[in-house]
């Protein structure tokens, strides 16, 4: 009971003395957090060191609801480690997590789900399933991400839940946040990689989100999309290869699917990632999917990775080796990057050598051979052996240098190191087989080596050579056999087999000199310990030595033994490895790893590309259902027009509409005409109001359906989180009456609960420096089922930082950059003059290809004005659209020019003094015009 008298000195001893489990238990039972913490730290340290701490389970689990956050975290660590072993006791903690799942704080909800799904206790599978389903529709993307993480955990615990989990995955795949994308694709890959049909609708979204997903998610998504693309698109390299394919291609010229192009385009910037895994993932995607002419871009990035840690180099070189076999030209410019340094680890040296060999061709072979010469002198003998083999391969592949290589190798035969000589012999043997008649002096030279060389493989190779070409060296061959017969009993097995072989061949060609020797060797072999050798001797004797019993075969003995043998093909061990997806573990091991998904072959004919079309309507509808009722959304959109603000609102809306007035669209055309008239005189406006309202209503409904309404509404508070109160807001794009520097934000409150909500007002406003807010007037009460609107003003200081405040619940408003400006009217000349003053750093130009639906002036104007609160500037050319506006706070000019060329090629220019605004605006408009 040391700690009961807690003086500092005793606490000090506590941290030194090892404690028994009983002491730890008592510390955990105490009511002091510091003692609990100390005990938990010790326990976790035990776990980390791999010591068993399982009998403390009951004492630890009691602290799961501890207030101290560090104790709590450590208890979680303990639980996740031991819950599997003590399932019954672990159940005690479940209720705490269930409570956590309902917490208003998203991070607590997420952490509760994380621990709950990590304790592997089968009995709670239904609870987990329920929690995952709930979390998958949580309003916080972080909780949804955690839900995605929990899916594979549940699946590994109980694979029978697969169907239900697929439903959740399907739902999460439709999620639009980058936070969720990586995690849900990971879950998809672990649970149902075969359900490629789930990807169709999300394909384009995943491609577009990719760049903003966190790096680990990028890797998983890219690998998955590679597989997807292989099933859905046509082979872009169909024209290379077999004649049949050519014929097919002639019939129907290859056109790349735009979705295929989208994938290639959106992954390319990721080659610049700092994460080697991401770079490798993009590289393999390009290797497997890109047209031959475009694959080259990956070489530079892969070569860059060679500067990284040696483990990274190892993996990258393995993949480069495979790539160089199929696409040699790609890496040729980087030949020197694969030169070997004496300090490289052996496995790296061997791989670089492999790459260099694959890259060798007629033009660079002399450089490569010179480089190889320095390697041969290395102290690392394994590496030298590999170099000799590499030289052999170069010699077989490139006819011009065969003699040079052979001479070089022969010189190595006098090397002092036996391993080097042996390896050379083996390689020379292979080379000689190609043109034996020219090289009888080399064979003679090698015959001499039998006296010195002890490496069995080399001896065997020499003997085989002499036997095979005994006619070229008729005098030496029998002498070699004589020597070998003497040492037969002391040789290794492979050498013995070759001695028998040599004897047999000599017997057939030169039986006069060697008959007795052969008999002697065969007799020795007959009593050898190794049965292979005994068998071989028996077999050969029957074949070559004619007796009465010997059958018809012996007549053909000569043909059998001295048949012309084809020269061996020296192949790279990396040949054909590309049937594994590059960058995968299976590719590296050249064997299928568990859970590996085969890379499918290209389809003969492309499946229907329309499966990837996402109808815009659907997204609106999805939003509808989220909001609870179909009526609600209409109300939200229409209510502004019922309020007093109607006239100005309709004015500004019509202003932008009439700006686009090509007059071809009947609906919008008439509406704008009317409202233009309306603005002519105030009296008329009064009269027309009713009529107008109807029309706008109709028009608005239409626009909602097209989801292209100029006034877009955002969710501020969801009715579930808001306990019945839902709030939506929109940027009404009208000047805020009391302060010109503020952006007007229109809010729509709806009370979906059954009771009245009272006193709605803003509290606890948290702003970045410089920002200001004009609060809306307090809404005293909102009866059940009713809606109300209010307008507030926010000065965002020309930045997209969020304004945070409390509205019974914590909410935040973040403006899209396009809402930070208001339209100004400029003439063409004014526009040009202003633009001339905003050149250089203040001008951002971007090239893009217009979406097919957006290739007319009207559509461009509509999309640009939807994205940003700008007005159109008149312009003489119909190929050019200009827009102008000023930022709300500082009044800096924002000028936008869209110049269209043929086939949707378009140049977008933004001139703005505020570069940040300019950059962000370009991004937004780009998105609006290309989608």
């Amino acid at each position, binding site marked *: 009971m040391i700690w009961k008298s807690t003086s500092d000195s005793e606490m000090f001893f506590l941290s030194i003395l090892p404690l028994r489990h009983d002491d730890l238990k008592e510390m955990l039972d105490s009511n002091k957090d510091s003692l609990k913490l100390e005990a938990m730290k010790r326990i976790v340290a035990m776990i980390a060191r791999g010591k068993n701490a399982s009998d403390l389970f009951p004492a630890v689990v009691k602290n799961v609801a501890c207030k101290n956050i560090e104790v709590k975290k450590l208890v979680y660590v303990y639980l996740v480690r031991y819950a599997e072993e003590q399932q019954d006791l672990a159940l005690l903690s479940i209720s705490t997590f269930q409570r956590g799942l309902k917490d208003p704080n998203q991070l607590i909800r997420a952490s509760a789900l994380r621990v709950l799904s990590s304790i592997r206790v089968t009995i709670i599978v239904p609870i987990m399933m329920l929690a995952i389903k709930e979390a998958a529709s949580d309003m916080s993307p972080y909780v949804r991400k955690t839900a995605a993480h929990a899916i594979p955990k549940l699946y590994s615990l109980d694979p029978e839940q697969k169907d239900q989990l697929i439903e959740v995955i399907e739902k999460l795949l439709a999620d639009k946040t980058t936070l969720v994308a990586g995690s849900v694709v990971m879950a998809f890959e672990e649970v149902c990689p075969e359900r490629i049909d789930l990807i169709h609708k999300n394909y384009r979204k995943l491609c577009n989100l990719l760049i903003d997903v966190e790096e680990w998610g990028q890797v998983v998504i890219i690998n998955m999309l590679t597989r997807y693309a292989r099933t859905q698109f046509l082979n872009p390299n169909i024209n290379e290869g077999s004649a049949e394919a050519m014929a097919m291609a002639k019939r129907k010229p290859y056109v790349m699917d735009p979705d295929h192009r989208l994938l290639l385009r959106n992954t390319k910037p990721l080659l610049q990632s700092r994460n080697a895994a991401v770079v490798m993932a993009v590289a393999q995607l390009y290797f497997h999917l890109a047209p031959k002419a475009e694959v080259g871009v990956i070489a530079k990035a892969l070569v*860059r990775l060679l500067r990284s840690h040696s483990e990274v180099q190892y993996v990258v070189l393995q993949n480069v080796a495979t790539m160089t076999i199929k696409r040699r030209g790609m890496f040729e410019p980087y030949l020197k990057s694969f030169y070997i340094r004496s300090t490289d680890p052996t496995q790296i040296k061997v791989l670089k050598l492999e790459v260099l060999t694959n890259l060798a061709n007629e033009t660079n072979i002399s450089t490569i051979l010179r480089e190889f010469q320095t390697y041969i002198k290395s102290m690392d003998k394994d590496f030298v052996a590999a170099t000799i083999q590499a030289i052999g391969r170069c010699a077989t592949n490139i006819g011009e240098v065969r003699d040079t290589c052979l001479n070089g190798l022969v010189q190595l035969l006098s090397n002092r190191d036996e391993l080097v000589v042996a390896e050379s012999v083996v390689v020379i043997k292979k080379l000689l087989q190609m043109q034996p008649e020219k090289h009888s002096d080399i064979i003679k030279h090698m015959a001499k080596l039998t006296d010195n060389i002890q490496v069995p493989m080399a001896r065997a190779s020499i003997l085989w050579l002499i036997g095979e070409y005994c006619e070229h060296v008729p005098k030496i061959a029998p002498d070699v056999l004589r020597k070998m017969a003497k040492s037969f009993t002391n040789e290794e097995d492979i050498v013995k087999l070759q001695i028998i072989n040599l004897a047999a061949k000599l017997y057939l060609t030169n039986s006069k000199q060697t008959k007795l020797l052969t008999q002697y060797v065969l007799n020795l072999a007959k009593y050898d310990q190794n049965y292979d050798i005994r068998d071989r001797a028996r077999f050969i004797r029957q074949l070559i030595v004619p007796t009465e019993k010997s059958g018809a075969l012996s007549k053909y003995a000569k043909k059998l033994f001295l048949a012309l043998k084809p020269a061996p093909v020296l192949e790279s061990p990396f040949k054909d490895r590309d049937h594994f997806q590059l960058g995968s573990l299976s590719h590296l091991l050249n064997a299928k790893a568990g859970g590996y998904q085969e890379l499918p072959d290209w389809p003969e004919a492309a499946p229907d590309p329309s499966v990837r079309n996402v109808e815009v309507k659907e997204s609106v509808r999805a939003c509808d259902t989220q909001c609870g009722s179909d009526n609600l959304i209409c109300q939200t959109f229409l209510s502004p027009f019922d309020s007093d603000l109607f006239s100005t609102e309709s004015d500004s809306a019509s202003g932008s509409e009439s700006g686009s007035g090509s007059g071809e669209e009947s609906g919008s055309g008439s509406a704008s005409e009317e409202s233009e008239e309306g603005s002519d005189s105030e009296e008329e406006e009064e009269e027309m109001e009713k009529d107008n309202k109807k029309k706008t209503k109709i028009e608005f409904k239409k626009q909602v359906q097209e989801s292209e309404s100029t006034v877009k509404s955002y969710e501020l508070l969801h009715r579930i989180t808001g306990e019945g109160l839902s709030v939506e807001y929109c940027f009404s794009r009208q000047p805020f009456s009391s302060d010109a520097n503020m952006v007007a934000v229109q809010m729509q409150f709806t009370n979906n609960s059954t009771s009245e909500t009272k006193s709605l007002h803003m509290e606890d406003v948290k702003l970045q420096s410089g920002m200001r807010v004009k609060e809306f007037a307090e809404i005293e009460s909102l009866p059940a089922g009713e809606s109300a609107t209010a307008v507030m003003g926010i000065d965002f200081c020309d930045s997209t930082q969020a304004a945070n405040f409390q509205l019974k619940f914590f909410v935040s408003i973040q403006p899209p950059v396009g809402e930070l400006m208001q339209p100004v009217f400029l003439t063409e000349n004014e526009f040009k003059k202003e633009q001339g003053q905003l050149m250089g750093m203040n001008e951002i130009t971007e090239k893009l290809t217009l979406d097919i639906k957006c290739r007319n002036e009207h559509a461009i104007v509509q999309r640009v004005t939807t994205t940003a609160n700008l007005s159109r500037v008149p312009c003489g050319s119909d190929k050019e659209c200009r827009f102008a506006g000023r930022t709300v706070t500082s009044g800096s000019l924002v000028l936008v020019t869209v110049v269209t060329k043929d086939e949707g090629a378009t140049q977008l220019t933004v001139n703005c003094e505020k570069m940040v605004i300019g950059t962000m605006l370009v991004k937004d408009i780009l998105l609006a015009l290309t989608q």
Partner: protein
Amino acid sequence: MIHSLFLINQSGDIFLEKHWKSVIGRSVCDYFFEAKEKAVDPENVAPVLQTPHHYLISILRGKLFFLSVIQTEVPPLFVIEFLHRVADTFQDYFGDCSEGVIKDNLVTVYELLEEMLDNGFPLATESNVLKEMIRPPTILRSVVNTLTGGSNVGDTLPTGQLSNIPWRRAGVKYTNNEAYFDVIEEIDAILDKSGTTVCAEIQGVIEACVRLTGMPDLTLSFMNPRLLDDVSFHPCVRFKRWESERVLSFIPPDGNFTLMTYHVSSQNLVAIPVYVKQNISFFETGPCGRLDITIGPKQTMGKTVEGLMVTIHMPKAVLSANLTATQGNYSYDLATKVLVWDIGKLNPQKLPNLRGSLSMQAGVPRPEENPSLNIELKIQQLAISGLKVSRLDMYGEKYKPFKGVKYVTKAGKFQVRT
């Protein structure tokens, strides 16, 4: 994905284990130990090993092995990159990544590992996010904690994970706002016997130390961005801006980070700052050899070469070296056969020279190869490629930050063959 992690020291003791799924026994590491035995040098252990039921992927950092156990298909680079990120995080938190430090901070390490992976899939790997959740230990804090019973776990929940710029923590405040950038270039080169360049290239990196209040949006531009042949960026850099304008536009993480790495291609002629005259020979007769090395300045752009050091891996047969250096000290390690000559500053008037005799093991044949020389050097205030930062602008915040750029050139993998 990643199933378990074992940390193993040089002598083969497992001093930390962490499992993200069911527990896997330590015996799985035996396969690794077997491979380590075979590969004499720890560097030569293959990073990926196959065992009957698992795959082992390991990295070597400092003197520690980080060994992860995998059960199913996963891109090996994914795991390797993650393990290095773990090691980087330890380095960042504790200033060092060694066995002693990890053992001293066992609980913090364990908490970090818990946050970095969820069920084997990376969760939070950004140092800024982690530091919000688990505070790095400082002496002051550990003293305060022992007295008050406080903790190292942040009581505010991390918001970084929720934002779309996860690399920056929210609510950063400094009284002195400063942003420093170090442009570090390394020359990778192989020179042959006669001093001609076999291959040479420049690898550069820009390390940043940014301590700025709020959410600054920085733009860094170069005088001559066309020099850069190949680049890779921290995720904060807006790639589009780079493509169109060749400027680095980014909202920086708080603290130290690597902004970008780049490569200057070998097509441009690379300036080699020093030349080496060497003569190493082993005599056919008698067990001895001779060594004579002189180093002089070549293309130094008028700057002083500092921190000059020559490392030679001698053949096994060399027993000892009896040398005299006109400048600096030399040492010869008998066990590893490594000769190190630490020269220091290069004086162009009086070139440093090392000469003398090497004594060899008797009865062993003369080594075939002459060992190659590895050279280290450093030149302050110079980026050898000629890259220059032209300006740094800040948007989005009102204060005036203090800005600075420093240039250093070093020798990377600089080897002279003999």
